């Protein structure tokens, strides 16, 4: 990478402004094309048959009757998806999750699929497929799955990370551990100790747009896929590998995305649609229903967490430990490991220990959800921190300030921190008017902190300057949160031209080099770095072309505010050449002018946020209402502040839903009881107050403009902030998320009964 990513201070002209979003009009008028809006002539309708059992061995699948139904063009089972994973265990899990091979591992697991001329015929065909199941004992609860004698989900799984190699298979795939110091000794120095157990239920990202794609496999072995995704290059890699294709022969074009939040980082239906198209010889459109999205895409983990924290009378934390158990669905994951890394990351701790257990259950394969695993850990830790502050007799903000990590602190997950932003967010909260606003009867205020790592990754960008001087920016990261506007601002800033003269598009997989997906809050961080690099490459060419036009050395040409400027006394009579003038002459100075960049963006920098919440509880019904909510977070540099605020508000809104209502409810039969938005209640506008935001800008030293990722951290504090507010309002500590009205009422009644 010939690019220096180090931060250097500068005065911005475009970056930091708030232009109208380029995709806004299409989205509010319904013109924007989402996954399900794409159609091809002659396309078939794909439908998937799903297991009604939580755990069952598939003895036999008879598709003969379905195949004979007029209008059915293809029927597939796992036999049509041979194993090309070549020993890659993670890819094999994805293959098995796309189409069950030997066992159905959760309610909703795909077992067969059809492509037919219309939806009615496809549905009829599904009913004609006969699956002979041997129903097995199941387990859906994370704690139950760890118990001796629990039904084994995969008898080839032996727990990793134990001191002694296990001799028996287990539902626990991995134990991980982090920390430093001596927690036993640390607790010995504590005057106060809080020890509690917490639970959080499984939630879904709740993206409004379901998974949707159109697959078209061609007779020459090539294929096209139009799909809603957070990472079309990753989808191409996965689909190509699962179908035994060269990646270059599969072109993936992404649609607009109606929400992803980590849930559109995995393939589910796409390899199935491609396999159906390959068998039928026609394009196949496959759109998951909401029921299927809930039952068979990737929700977050359900968790069970024990926390213990001790402090001296002066408020210094002496020791902290946590045991975190996270459900993974039926396939191995590293969700508890991440929880164990993030749990105490906000604090300066001499003695800390966290242990994570990854637990298999008969639920859908867990997927990432916005700062995956961190919100649940923060809920447990920040609840205990709040309670400990009370025992010590300190204000909860002051208690956190006293113990906050800072530059030079050894983080709970290992390394020593460089410059970080937890302190400034806490100081901002301490001084925020929200903290001083009066509260009424049955109302409570809570606050909490949150941490997330943020990532970079592989990124490739093209910047093309047209003959008229306008600029096309082709990027390979999906725009999930306004990145096309932000990246246009970045290109305009670097080139010194107006934002209106830059048009950013998300290019298909045949038009650019590989890009990692938009996850880890990396979209704007990584692609802005690549855009700056591409723009600087284009500027070098612009200077060369201006030098030709002037017939002087390129060394005498500088780039200033969108113009080539000849430097030196001997060129004093030369006027400036604008980008537009140089572009107009490009046909005779060497042809098209472009800048390209491929790089790995690293050094994203860790991120912190602190939230404040006011809530009112109805003691008669347990119903709650969030009255006021404030987010304070470090953005490094807010490229488009409105989008940054939107990310902060979106994370808080999702956190409020998670904290108060959302949960997967399984029956004793192992079937999901509430796979729809009527029974799985996400917050709507009328449930939420205006969410106030405060953007802090502490430059990231590893980005030229100081940019940090902002998309995920904002969902980390809400569970705890709301739990602390509700606990203060109700006078009883809430330890189980979601704090739905029945759960709050039960807690209130238990407290009243003493």
């Amino acid at each position, binding site marked *: 990478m010939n690019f220096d990513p180090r931060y250097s201070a500068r005065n911005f002209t475009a970056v930091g402004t708030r232009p109208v979003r380029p995709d806004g009009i299409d989205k509010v008028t319904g013109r924007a094309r989402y996954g399900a809006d794409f159609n091809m002539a002659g396309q078939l309708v794909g439908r998937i048959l799903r297991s009604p059992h939580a755990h069952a061995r598939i003895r036999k699948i008879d598709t003969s009757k379905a195949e004979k139904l007029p209008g059915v063009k293809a029927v597939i089972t796992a036999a049509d998806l041979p194993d090309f994973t070549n020993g890659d265990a993670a890819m094999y899990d994805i293959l098995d999750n796309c189409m069950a091979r030997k066992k159905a591992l959760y309610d909703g697991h795909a077992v067969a699929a059809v492509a037919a001329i219309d939806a009615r015929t496809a549905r009829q065909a599904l009913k004609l497929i006969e699956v002979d199941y041997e129903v097995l004992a199941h387990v859906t609860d994370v704690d139950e799955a760890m118990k001796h004698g629990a039904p084994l989900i995969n008898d080839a799984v032996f727990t990793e990370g134990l001191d002694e190699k296990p001799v028996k298979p287990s539902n626990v795939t991995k134990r*991980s551990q982090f920390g430093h110091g001596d927690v036993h000794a640390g607790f010995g120095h504590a005057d106060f100790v809080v020890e509690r157990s917490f639970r959080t239920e499984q939630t879904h990202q709740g993206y409004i747009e379901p998974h949707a794609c159109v697959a078209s496999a061609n007779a020459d072995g090539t294929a096209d896929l139009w799909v809603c995704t957070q990472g079309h290059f990753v989808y191409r890699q996965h689909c190509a590998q699962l179908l035994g294709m060269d990646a270059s022969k599969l072109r993936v074009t992404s649609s607009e995305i109606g929400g992803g939040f980590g849930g559109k980082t995995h393939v589910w239906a796409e390899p199935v649609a491609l396999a159906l198209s390959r068998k039928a010889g026609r394009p196949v459109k496959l759109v998951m229903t909401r029921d299927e999205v809930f039952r068979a895409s990737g929700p977050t983990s359900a968790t069970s967490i024990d926390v213990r924290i001790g402090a001296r009378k002066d408020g210094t934390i002496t020791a902290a430990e946590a045991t975190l158990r996270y459900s993974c669905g039926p396939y191995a994951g590293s969700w508890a490991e991440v929880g164990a890394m993030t749990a105490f990351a906000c604090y300066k701790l001499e003695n800390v220990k966290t242990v994570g257990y990854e637990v298999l259950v008969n639920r859908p394969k867990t997927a990432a959800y916005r700062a995956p695993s961190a919100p649940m850990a923060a809920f447990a830790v920040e609840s205990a921190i709040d309670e400990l502050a009370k025992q010590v007799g300190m204000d909860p903000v002051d208690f956190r300030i006293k113990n906050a990590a800072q530059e030079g602190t050894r983080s709970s997950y290992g390394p020593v921190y460089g410059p970080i932003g937890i302190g400034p967010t806490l100081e901002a909260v301490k001084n925020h008017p929200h903290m001083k606003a009066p509260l009424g009867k049955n109302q409570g205020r809570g606050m909490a902190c949150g941490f997330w790592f943020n990532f970079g990754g592989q990124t490739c960008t093209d910047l093309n300057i047209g003959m008229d001087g306008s600029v096309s920016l082709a990027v390979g990261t999906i725009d999930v949160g306004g990145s096309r506007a932000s990246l246009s601002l970045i290109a305009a800033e670097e080139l010194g031209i107006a934002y209106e003269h830059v048009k950013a598009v998300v290019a298909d997989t045949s038009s650019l080099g590989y890009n990692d997906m938009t996850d880890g809050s990396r979209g704007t961080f990584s692609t802005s770095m690549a855009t700056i690099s591409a723009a600087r490459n284009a500027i070098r060419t612009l200077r060369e072309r201006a030098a030709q036009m002037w017939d002087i050395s390129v060394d005498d040409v500088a780039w200033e505010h969108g113009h080539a400027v000849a430097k030196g006394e001997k060129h004093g009579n030369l006027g400036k050449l604008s980008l537009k003038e140089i572009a107009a002459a490009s046909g005779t100075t060497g042809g098209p002018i472009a800048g390209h960049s491929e790089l790995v963006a690293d050094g994203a920098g860790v991120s912190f946020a602190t939230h404040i919440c006011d809530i009112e509880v109805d003691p008669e019904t347990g119903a709650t209402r969030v009255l006021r909510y404030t987010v304070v977070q470090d953005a490094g540099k807010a490229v488009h502040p409105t989008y940054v605020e939107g990310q902060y508000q979106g994370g808080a809104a999702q956190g409020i839903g998670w904290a108060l209502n959302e949960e997967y409810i399984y029956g004793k039969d192992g079937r999901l009881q509430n796979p729809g938005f009527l029974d799985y209640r996400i917050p709507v506008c009328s449930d939420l107050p205006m969410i106030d935001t405060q953007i802090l800008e502490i430059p990231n030293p590893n980005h030229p403009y100081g940019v940090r990722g902002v998309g995920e951290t904002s969902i980390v504090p809400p569970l705890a902030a709301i739990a602390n507010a509700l606990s203060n309002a109700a006078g009883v500590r809430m330890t189980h998320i979601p704090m739905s009205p029945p759960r709050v009422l039960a807690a209130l009644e238990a407290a009243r009964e003493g």
Partner: protein
Amino acid sequence: MVEVTLWGSLGRAAGGTSTLDIEAKDIRELFRKLGEQHPGLQPWIDRGIAVSIDGTIYRDTWSKELPQDAEIFLLPRLAGG
């Protein structure tokens, strides 16, 4: 020679040690020598390890140099959402 600190689980895989001294100029050489000198770590390297250099986490820039006096800390290579 740089001192490399391993996170808890990786330390177990390396035979119960929390630090290793490795002669390596960059992340690529570090991973190569870790795999050679501690074969038990190779599956972990294949699965993905991130390297924290003075608190900044590097996941993919294997050409990143390892300063002699820097704090080098190995972490699981994580994914986001």
